[in-house]
């Protein structure tokens, strides 16, 4: 039951996005007869230019709103990751439409002369249009950085904030330009509200997050070195402890002179919030520096996020972890260890080789005590883990809920294979936090 609602919910969020995007087109279309909008090529390009601007701005607003990372989005979109995937997609489409917007409008001038078209595209004494040009320039620079440059996350995050500035200019341009928007009251109000929500989201998340977003303070208590360049940080709450469900993740930053202070998502590996444990593997610029954290450093924690909750599903479950994807399952296992549970669990822990088994001893110990059947899968010996090999070992696979967390490639491949083996889609649950 729960599973079904969850799949349905995902579409619910995207349907809302479709409606919110197409609503301005609807207002615009009923403004005057369609035949008038598409009577000749000249008028058609003008109309398409207007539509690209309207839809582009609606999508730009929605991308801004989604970036606010509100908890309600998680429920509507099936997870924060899904929200970010949509944010990225919507932003890209908005950018494309807004690029084509001035070109379509310039077509009319092109018929007069190249000079007129050039004058139209360049800044002039007409400020409402200049705001649009400024917005477009900022947007192009910021998005070229986002899409085409490999830079440090920190630099990326800083440059990405400029899109908020571009949005403010684009918003002013839209409200002052005095085209069909000025004459169409419903359209004007709709775009104003959507745009204001976008601007508010930008201020809430990108500029003043330290004042608005609720965060919990933790102090680093212990740093445990684990195999495979992994560390587990243990921290105790300064005031209030985080309340979460095993399998969830948080956004956190370190207040330390050794590590930069931006927020990153991490899975919780402990069963409770006091103390909290976070396992981090060295995978990039930022995570490589985390080993320099010292005892007593402060952590700000925002969350919890995520719908990866084993208690939502039937008592018979198969868990599949790939590499560092074991962390949410560690949280669940530790929870099961501390609480009496009647869950029947098969855990497949797939790693490259023996050295990748970061929680091996602890997992085997829990497996002895509780009804957890553990299969350690070493790819260098057994080959890549496949749905068939899991089915060979777990005979009642079709009756079970399957929870997967690991590299995106592995999750995508396994999900496809499970469906081919006849597992129902709503029995497969995965935790994705890997953007592209």
């Amino acid at each position, binding site marked *: 039951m729960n599973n079904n609602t969850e799949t349905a919910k995902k579409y619910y969020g995207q349907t809302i996005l479709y409606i919110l995007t197409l609503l301005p087109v609807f207002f615009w279309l009923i403004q005057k007869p369609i035949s008038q909008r598409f009577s000749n090529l000249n008028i058609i390009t003008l109309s398409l230019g207007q539509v690209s601007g309207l839809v582009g701005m609606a999508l730009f607003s929605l991308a801004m709103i989604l970036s606010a990372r509100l908890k309600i989005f998680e429920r509507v979109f099936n997870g924060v990751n899904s929200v970010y995937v949509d944010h990225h997609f919507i932003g890209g489409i908005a950018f494309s439409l807004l690029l084509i917007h001035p070109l379509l409008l310039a077509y*009319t001038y092109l018929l*007069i002369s190249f000079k007129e078209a050039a004058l139209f*595209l360049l800044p002039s004494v*007409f400020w409402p249009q200049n705001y649009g040009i400024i917005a477009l320039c900022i947007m192009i620079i910021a998005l070229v950085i986002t899409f085409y440059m490999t830079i440090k996350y920190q630099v990326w995050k800083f440059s990405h904030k400029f899109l908020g500035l571009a949005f403010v200019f684009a918003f002013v341009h839209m409200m*002052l330009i005095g085209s069909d928007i000025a004459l169409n009251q419903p359209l004007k109000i709709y775009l104003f509200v959507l745009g204001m929500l976008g601007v508010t989201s930008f201020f809430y998340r990108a500029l003043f997050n330290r004042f608005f977003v609720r965060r919990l303070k933790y102090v680093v208590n212990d740093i445990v070195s684990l195999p495979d360049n992994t560390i587990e940080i243990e921290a105790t709450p300064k005031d209030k402890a985080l309340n979460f469900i095993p399998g969830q993740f948080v956004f956190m930053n370190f207040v330390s002179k050794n590590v930069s202070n931006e927020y990153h998502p991490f899975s919780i590996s402990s069963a409770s919030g006091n103390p909290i444990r976070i396992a981090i593997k060295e995978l990039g610029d930022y995570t490589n520096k985390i080993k320099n954290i010292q005892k007593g450093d402060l952590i700000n924690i925002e969350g919890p996020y995520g719908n990866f909750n084993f208690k939502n599903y039937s008592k018979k479950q198969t868990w599949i972890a790939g590499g560092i994807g074991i962390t949410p399952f560690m949280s669940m296992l530790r929870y099961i260890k501390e609480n009496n549970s009647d869950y029947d669990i098969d855990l497949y822990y797939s790693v490259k080789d023996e050295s990748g088994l970061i929680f091996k001893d602890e997992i085997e110990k829990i497996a002895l005590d509780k009804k957890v059947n553990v299969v350690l899968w070493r790819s260098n010996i057994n080959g890549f883990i496949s749905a068939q090999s899991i089915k060979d070992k777990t005979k009642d696979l079709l009756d079970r809920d399957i929870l997967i967390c690991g590299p995106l490639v592995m999750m995508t491949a396994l999900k496809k294979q499970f469906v081919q083996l006849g597992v129902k889609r709503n029995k497969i649950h995965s935790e994705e936090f890997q953007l592209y």
Partner: protein
Amino acid sequence: MIKNIVTIFLSIFIIAVIGILGASVLTNQKSTVDSNTQQQSPVVTETNVNPTNFTDNDSDENESDDNDDDAYTSVKNTTNTTSNNQTTNTTTTNTSGITSAQFAKHNTASDCWIKINGNAYNMTNYLKAHPGGASAITPYCGKGDATAAFDTKGGQGSHSPKAESLLTNYFLGKIIN
């Protein structure tokens, strides 16, 4: 996937903008040479009136001659200047006047015709240059009658003779009902 879409649109944008600006610079140099030889600078930037169609309809027209005479002469003047300057003709209106329906279509800031003294003027290219701001003109794009607004400068006096002569450059034709 989205990256490819963005790349395509960004390429189109960059090529189009560079193309337009480049062509503008090139044709501008060329037209300065042309105007030097012709010793006449272009006055009319755009006209929707097609001279040939105009004369065709002239013979067919046999109603209210008295009223239309003035309009005809002025329209003919405009078309003459137009052909002298070899300004390219883009859209064509094939009647001796502009119907209210046609007029009403040009009701945006990017395609703006206004009505003054029963005549239509294409203000699209002038909007940005209007000292009183485009927003003083845009409410009249394709609708209403801007006569009073023009005569009184929106209730603040009156336009200069220079402004009035400037207006004639944007004349399109008489609006017929």
